[in-house]
């Protein structure tokens, strides 16, 4: 905290804007600490309180707007990506979307206080076609609550900032260890995935040009082209390879039990 206050004194509003914007974009940056420090700096007359509020709100709304537009333009790709680790991605997507649909408006107002949800709510609102005006109103309420809460804490407790800074340094060391362990855990997970998927690398592949040529030569009767996207059908206007059929990966063996073994099966996902 002490370091943040010192940095804020030197670089002031630009640093505050950067910290808040980065957190709004989903990066692991401690914007709450930045706001507390900025609030304390305001109380000590190093920064102007009204400028802290305006800059923090602007940076937060800008970051959220970028994610909102990203959600709007990518449809369900983002949610599909986030649900990839679930046991049943299809169910994860449906449940998440329905839950946000029921509680989305309230969620947007309080999401900033919940790590993870704070960067998920704006793109979900975009994916679900919330109007930008409505999103902005709700997000502004949420941003005001968040900024005033943390900057207010800094402002009110500026007199005991050194004590808080000491505690923050201790917490900071614990956080560093946590981040290191989380990073090692992530590396181990990637190695595990690589090891688990190694058997899939030997599955034969076909280039799209070669397959297109087979289809053009009239070999459709000898083959099945199958779409195995588990979450590809949630946007109106979705397309697929002409003549292909859908296989639901979670219900695979029941679907193919009567298929002839003499046909070639070509599979694709996104």
């Amino acid at each position, binding site marked *: 905290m002490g370091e943040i206050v010192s940095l804020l004194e030197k670089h002031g509003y630009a640093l505050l804007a950067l910290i808040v914007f980065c957190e709004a974009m989903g990066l692991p940056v401690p914007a709450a600490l930045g706001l507390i420090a900025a609030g304390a700096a305001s109380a000590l007359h190093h920064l102007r309180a009204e400028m802290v509020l305006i800059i923090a709100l602007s940076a937060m709304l800008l970051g959220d707007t970028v994610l909102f537009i990203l959600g709007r333009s990518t449809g369900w790709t983002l949610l599909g990506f986030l649900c990839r680790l679930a046991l049943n991605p299809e169910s994860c997507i449906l449940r998440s979307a329905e839950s946000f649909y029921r509680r989305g408006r309230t969620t947007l107002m309080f999401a900033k206080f919940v790590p993870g949800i704070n960067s998920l709510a704006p793109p979900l609102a975009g994916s*679900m076609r919330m109007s930008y005006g409505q999103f902005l109103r709700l997000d502004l309420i949420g941003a005001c609550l968040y900024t005033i809460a943390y900057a207010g804490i800094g402002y009110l407790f500026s007199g005991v900032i050194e004590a808080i800074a000491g505690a923050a340094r201790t917490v900071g060391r614990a956080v560093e260890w946590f981040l290191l362990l989380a990073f090692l855990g992530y590396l181990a997970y990637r190695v595990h995935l690589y090891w688990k998927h190694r058997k899939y*690398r030997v599955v034969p592949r076909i280039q799209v040009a070669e397959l297109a040529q087979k289809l053009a030569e009239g070999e459709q009767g000898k083959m099945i082209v199958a779409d195995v996207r588990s979450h590809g059908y949630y946007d109106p206007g*979705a397309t697929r*390879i002409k003549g292909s059929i859908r296989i639901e990966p979670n219900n695979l063996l029941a679907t193919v039990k009567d298929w002839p073994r003499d046909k070639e*099966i070509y599979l*694709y996902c996104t």
Partner: protein
Amino acid sequence: MREATSARVAHILREHGFDAYVIHGGLRAWTKGSYPLEPVPQDDVVLLPSFR
């Protein structure tokens, strides 16, 4: 891993005696190559809730 789902499904199908292959690059490569596409049939479309 890219093509994770199709590779996994192809692997399972091959284990069950099917002659299965993965289309390298998936739908993205097919679309990029300007090969023919068609709309996903309405029966297969699962539209999620929308605020509009």
